[in-house]
Structure formats: structure tokens, C-alpha cells
């Protein structure tokens, strides 16, 4: 190799060339390179020596040099390791961490002060004269909500009729959240039905069934039917009294979770498997989408949807609101239960 300058490898041009070629070397590689160079030097030295004595002398020298080199190297490695272990406590990093925490606190304090100041300037909460309480939107919801949507509970009328598009999105948020947790935590058997040992261990861990607690089982025996019945009541009366799909679904979900805790997975799987979950969510969400698409389409094209509103206050009234409430309730209940089951054993 014809290198004119000894430090050719370190020249700026050579570094640039390496960078362009995409072969820029990390620090360790460069260390190896210098080691190799030292080896070359030794060989050259060995060739030059001719006489025996000189050779012996050289040999000793070489050995001592090698020893020295090895010690040096070990020292370096030790130092590097120590540096790495001590890294979070070295001066610069510690100072940086302190400054970082201080600045973070400062920014937090500043944001809190600004937000508090803002809240102080907002219209007074709950007073009648605020822009949100006194405009035509709230007025129409309250005054004509019952006659236009057929729902006595204005809130249900608002979320499932006036602003049904938002709720359509919202119920899909629940669905997508359940799917994401499923992706993250579901334990999968490989293509040939085998699982790795790590997966098996995890599965065993999660399948650890709850103990057969007599007290819990007895209480659950009485409570679960009541809870689920109450949930169904809340859903079915969502348009008449406070409640609706979201709250009723959450109640049913809680009932299912209690049942699962008391009686274990085997008994629950008799009536609630992954298939049940996907069928119920699928049917509920598809019905929701189709029904609302139909009603949006009719509304936008100024057609009448042909769905009777019925008399306000009856169970079967207010058009699409009751079926939509049932759909939302199913989705919420399934999602609640699915979250719990997936976290518990990595599957439904």
C-alpha cells in the first residue's frame, strides 16, 4: 500500500470519502484497526533482526511490548466499561439531568399558570348567560328535542340523532381499541399449532385460573343476573330515562367480568368466546353503520326516512334511537369484557 501520509486514514478527505461510500467506522472498529497496525510493526521489527542475540533480545523486547500492550488494552477496556457504567453519574450528564428537570418543572409551572389564568377569564361555568348556554343550539335541543327525536332523554336524542355521526365514530373508537389490545396481547399459536416455550410460559401464567372462592361464587350467583338485568334495563330505557348504550354496556361488561372472576374461564367460554365477541361487535357495528348511512342519506337528500317516532315515553318509540342504543350497548359490553379477558389470559 502506498500511503504517503501515515495518518492517511484520519485525514479529512479520507473521512469524507468513507462517509460518501457509507463505510464510516464506529469507534470500536477504529480501535481494531490501530491494533492491527501495531501487529504489522512487530513483524517488520522481527524481519530486520538478523543475529541470534539480537533476535533473542528482540524477542524479549517483543514479549515485554506485547505484555505491555495487553495490559494497556485490558486497562482501556476496563476503563471503557467503567465509564459506561458511570456514565449516568458523570459530570456533564448529571448537570444535564438537573437542568432538564429544572427546565421541565419551569415549563410545567408556566403552562399551569397560563391555563389557570385562561380558565379565570372563561365565562363562568353554569351561569345562564354564557355563550354555550344561551345560543340557538342548546335552545333547540331543549325546546324541540323531544318532539324532533322522540326521545324524552335529551342527551340520548342528541348523541344518537342530532349528532349521530360523532357517535358513529365514537363506537368505532371502542372497537378499534379492542382490536389494538388484541393485536398487542393475543397469544398466537404458530402455523403448525406449536408455540414457543416463552409463549407457553406466558400462557400458563395468564391461564392461572382464579381460585374457587365460595363466597365470591355465592355472591356472584345472586349479583350477576341483577347486574346484567339492570344493564339491559338501562340500555332499553336509554331514550326515556338517564342512561343509554354507553352506560348500560359498561354495566353489563362489569357483570360479565364479575362472572369471569368468580367462575373462571372454562365456564365463561361456554357462552362467550372470541367468536361471540366478533359476531356481536360485527353485527352491532354494521347495523349501526347501515342504519345511520340510510338516515344520513335520507336527511341530506330531504327524503323522509319512513321510520315512525312513536309516542314519546314509550319503550318502543323514538325511531332508530332504541336499536342504536342496543348496538352501542353490545359493543361497549363486549369491549369491556374483551379488555379484561385479553389482559388476563391473552385471548377471549
Amino acid at each position, binding site marked *: 500500500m502506498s500511503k504517503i501520509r501515515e495518518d492517511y486514514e484520519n485525514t479529512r478527505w479520507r473521512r469524507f470519502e468513507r462517509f*460518501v461510500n457509507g463505510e464510516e467506522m464506529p469507534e470500536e472498529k477504529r480501535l481494531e484497526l490501530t491494533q492491527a497496525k501495531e501487529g504489522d510493526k512487530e513483524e517488520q521489527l522481527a524481519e530486520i533482526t538478523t543475529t541470534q542475540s539480537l533476535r533473542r533480545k528482540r524477542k524479549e523486547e517483543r514479549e515485554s511490548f506485547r505484555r505491555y500492550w495487553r495490559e494497556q488494552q485490558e486497562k482501556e477496556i476496563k476503563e471503557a466499561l467503567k465509564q459506561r457504567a458511570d456514565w449516568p453519574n458523570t459530570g456533564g450528564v448529571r448537570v444535564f439531568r438537573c437542568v432538564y428537570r429544572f427546565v421541565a418543572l419551569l415549563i410545567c409551572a408556566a403552562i399551569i399558570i397560563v391555563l389557570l389564568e*385562561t380558565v379565570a377569564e372563561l365565562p363562568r361555568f353554569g351561569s345562564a348567560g354564557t355563550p354555550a348556554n344561551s345560543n340557538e343550539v342548546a335552545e333547540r335541543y331543549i325546546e324541540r328535542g323531544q318532539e324532533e327525536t322522540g326521545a324524552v332523554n335529551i342527551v340520548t336524542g342528541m348523541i344518537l340523532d342530532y349528532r349521530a355521526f360523532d357517535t358513529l365514530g365514537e363506537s368505532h373508537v371502542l372497537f378499534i381499541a379492542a382490536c389494538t389490545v388484541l393485536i398487542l396481547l393475543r397469544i398466537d399459536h404458530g402455523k403448525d399449532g406449536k408455540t414457543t416455550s416463552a409463549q407457553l410460559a406466558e400462557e400458563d401464567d395468564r391461564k392461572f385460573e382464579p381460585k374457587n372462592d365460595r363466597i365470591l361464587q355465592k355472591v356472584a350467583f345472586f349479583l350477576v343476573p341483577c347486574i346484567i338485568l339492570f344493564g339491559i334495563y338501562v340500555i332499553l330505557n336509554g331514550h326515556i330515562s338517564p342512561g343509554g348504550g354507553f352506560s348500560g354496556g359498561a354495566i353489563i361488561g362489569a357483570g360479565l367480568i364479575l362472572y369471569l372472576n368468580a367462575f373462571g374461564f372454562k365456564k365463561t367460554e361456554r357462552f362467550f368466546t372470541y367468536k361471540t365477541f366478533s359476531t356481536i361487535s360485527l353485527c352491532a357495528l354494521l347495523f349501526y353503520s347501515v342504519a*345511520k348511512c340510510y338516515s344520513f342519506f335520507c336527511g341530506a337528500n330531504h327524503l323522509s326516512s319512513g321510520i315512525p317516532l312513536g309516542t314519546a315515553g314509550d319503550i318502543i318509540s323514538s325511531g332508530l334511537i332504541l336499536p342504536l342504543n342496543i348496538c352501542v350497548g353490545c359493543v361497549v359490553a363486549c369491549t369491556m369484557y374483551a379488555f379484561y379477558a385479553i389482559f388476563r389470559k391473552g385471548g377471549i
Partner: protein
Amino acid sequence: MNIIQNFPLFNIVMCLMGGVICSVLKAKPAKCLSMGLIALAGVMNGCVLWYAAKYGQYTYMMGHFPAPWGNEIRVGVLEAVLALFFCIIMFLSVLGGEHYITIDIEESKTNLYFTMVNLMLTSLLALIYTNDLFTAYVFVEINTIAAGALIMIRSNGHTLVAATKYMIMSLVGSGLLLIGITMLYDVSGHLLMVNIHEQISVYARTGEYAFPLTVTIGLMSVGLAIKSALFPFHSWLPDAYGYSTPSSAAILSSLVSKGYIFLLFKIFYRVFGFDFVLDHKVTNILFVFGVVGMIAGSVMAIYQHDVRRLIAFSSVAQIGYIYMGIGLAVPMGTVAAVFHIMSHAASKSMLFIAAKGLSDVSGDSKDFSDLKGAGFRNKLAGIAFSVGAFSMVGIPLLAGFTSKVYFAEAALLASNRKMAVAMVALAISTILNAVYFIRAVITIYTPNPKRELAAKDYRLPRTMAVALVLFIILNVFLGTWSNLIEDAIEMGLKTFS
């Protein structure tokens, strides 16, 4: 009412239902259904674009109740252009990475990937078309969760960390946006963009609620800037783009962050009104961050050994360009920003797909020292990578060049000080872009005979080849027929506010 006017509604509901159905299908039918729906959505949005260009904008009532009471979507030329474009990019990204989706993801979860893709498209379309701030927030939620799932579905350690980082940062952004929306509702009593705008222009005259409104603009801008990875908030980006499956990286970089930027446009133009935003000097702040991001992103990209992370850091710089365009505070700047949304999406997604093709023939390594000569081993991916790189650097005839010209034009129209800064930043950033992208191109075209012999029997997946060719055509189209698109954007922006 013309049937085409219903298409945005059909689009959104169709993709929602498609996503739900995909969750119970097997992998293959799910893929077919999902791709078919994306293509159909693209065709429908093309019709909508034609209709909007011919008959002008319109609002569409979602249900039996008119706007301030019910929900509403608004369709104009700008929305339709972006919706059509997003569908095209989504289709090509999924098509290009389709082969690797089946490899990277466990078989039983592949259908859920397509669920996420469909719901992502739904949320993007809804974000584009919505005329209501709360609807926007609901679909921001769907978008965030779907993006997290798209990152994490290739389950290895890196993607889990990346998804966690993404979720934390992105949820902070969502939170700030939600606080902003709440305050706006409190102050104005409305959620519909038009009504809020009316109320705010009244306040602007009387000077009421000046401080809360300023804070609100700040919160919303920061929230959306975090979600779209503007420079100081970009920490989630390199991992998320660098380790996820190539389709996800392409979708995330080219669509997800862009959806949020478009929402920010909407908030600036349709909610606050651009004059109000100018009075509060928000654009100046965005301008500064954009310029810093343009340079810092490029500098960080230079240090990367990993081709995927290099492309990811280059995204930070390109997002900086878009915010600089908004920050110039002239109409032309916004045109340039919207055009850059499109040109960056077209080039970046192509780069991610092509980079996967290159690393495929280099022993699945993304490191530059292994990628040597990859352009000879996988010719089409090499060409596509070079086209994408040249487009990002700004070589004439390609999309990136045109958007840089528009940025320069916009800078000339801006105030003197901004013009100087923007011009210098553009020049420096272009040179830095060239340093790392040209270096990457040189690396993949440096012969490496040992590997080339080994990779002789490699066959490029056919779907990827089709996607790459279409990407190249799209890039050249954006670069050469830019007048058409610029006219459409200008037309859309005129009626936008």
C-alpha cells in the same frame, strides 16, 4: 341533489364497514376487500373532485337536522384533491408493502392490519371533509389508535418501544387539541367551524376573550404540531418510521402526519380566520420552528447509518418545509405547503417501499455498508429510490423540485425579513438534503461483486414492482403537471375560508 354529492358520506361509511368486516375475515379476503375499498374510495373521490370543480363547493347535512344542530361535512375542491390523493397514496403504499405484510406480521393478525388500514383511511377522509371540530376530534382518536396499531403490529422489541413513544407523544397532542376545542366551545358556544368563526370575528372586533383565544390557538397549534412531528416534537418519529413494516412506515410518514397538518389548515382558515391568526403572530412562531426543523432534521439525517432512519429524519426536515410555508403568511405559502404535502407524500412513501426492496437483496440489513451495490441487485427498487431521493433533493421534473420552486415564489411575496430567512434556509436545507441523499444513491450504485453474485436469483415481488412504477409515474406527474394541481389548490383555497 346529484348522486355524486353523497359520495363523501358513502366513502366514510364504506371504509368504516370494510374495517369492521376485515376483523372477521381471513388474511387474504381481508386484503382483497381492503384494497378494493381503497380503490373504490379513490374513484369516488375522483368523481367528487370533478363535481366540486364544476359546480363549486357544497355542504352536506349528516342526518335530518341542519348544521349547527346536526353534523355536517363540507366538500370543496381542496378537500376533494387531498382525499383523492390520500386514497392513491394509501393504495400504493399497501400494494407496495403487501408482500412484507404477510412476512412481518403473524398470520392470524394480518386481517387486523387491514382493519387498521381501512379505519385509518376513514379517519383521514373524515378529517379532510369534516366541518365540525368535535367530529374532527373523534376521528383524530381513531387515527391515533390506528397509527399506534400499525406501528406495533410487527411485534418485535423496537416497534413496541416505538409505539409506546408514539402513543405518549400523540396523546399529549390529542389532549392539547381537546383542551383547545373545549375552550373554544366555552367561549363561542359552537362546535361548527362556520359558527365559531362568526363568533370569533365578533370577539375580534370587541376585544372580548382575547387572552383565552390566544391560548387556544397556541394549544391547538402545539397539539397538532406534536402529532405531525414538527421539529422539537419529533422524538417519536425515527423509531416509528424506522422499524415498522414498510407499508406502515409509508402510510405514517405520508398520510398520518399530513392529515393533522390539514386539520391545522382548517382550524386556521375556517375556525379562527387567517387574519386573526396573523394578528396573534402564530405564523411567525410556526415559521421559526419550521426553518429550524428544515435544517436540524437534515443535519440529523446526515449522521444516520440506517437507510430507514435516514428517510425518517428527512421527514422531520420536510415537515419543517410545510410549516415554513404556513408561516410565510401569504396565500402562495399555503399553496406551496399543500403542494408539498402531496409531493412529500408521493416521494416519501416510495422511498420507504424502495428501501425495503434494497435491503431485501442485502441480507435484510438496512445499514449503508451492506447496501453497497444494492441498486444493481434490485434494479427497479434502485431506480425508484434514486427518483425519490432526487425528488427530495429537488431535481427538476420531479415533485420535490416543483414544491421548492413554489416555496421560493412564496418567500418572494412575504415580508423582507422572512424572505431572506426562508431563502437562505431553503438553500442550506437543499444542500444538506443533497449531502445525505446523493450519498445514499452513490452507495447503492457502488459495485459490490460478492453480493451481486449471491443475489442473482432474487425476484422482486410483483405487487411491489407495480407499486414502484406507479409511484415513479406519480412523482413525475406531480413534477411536470404541477400547474394543474396548483390551479386546483388555489381554486380550493379561495373558497376555503
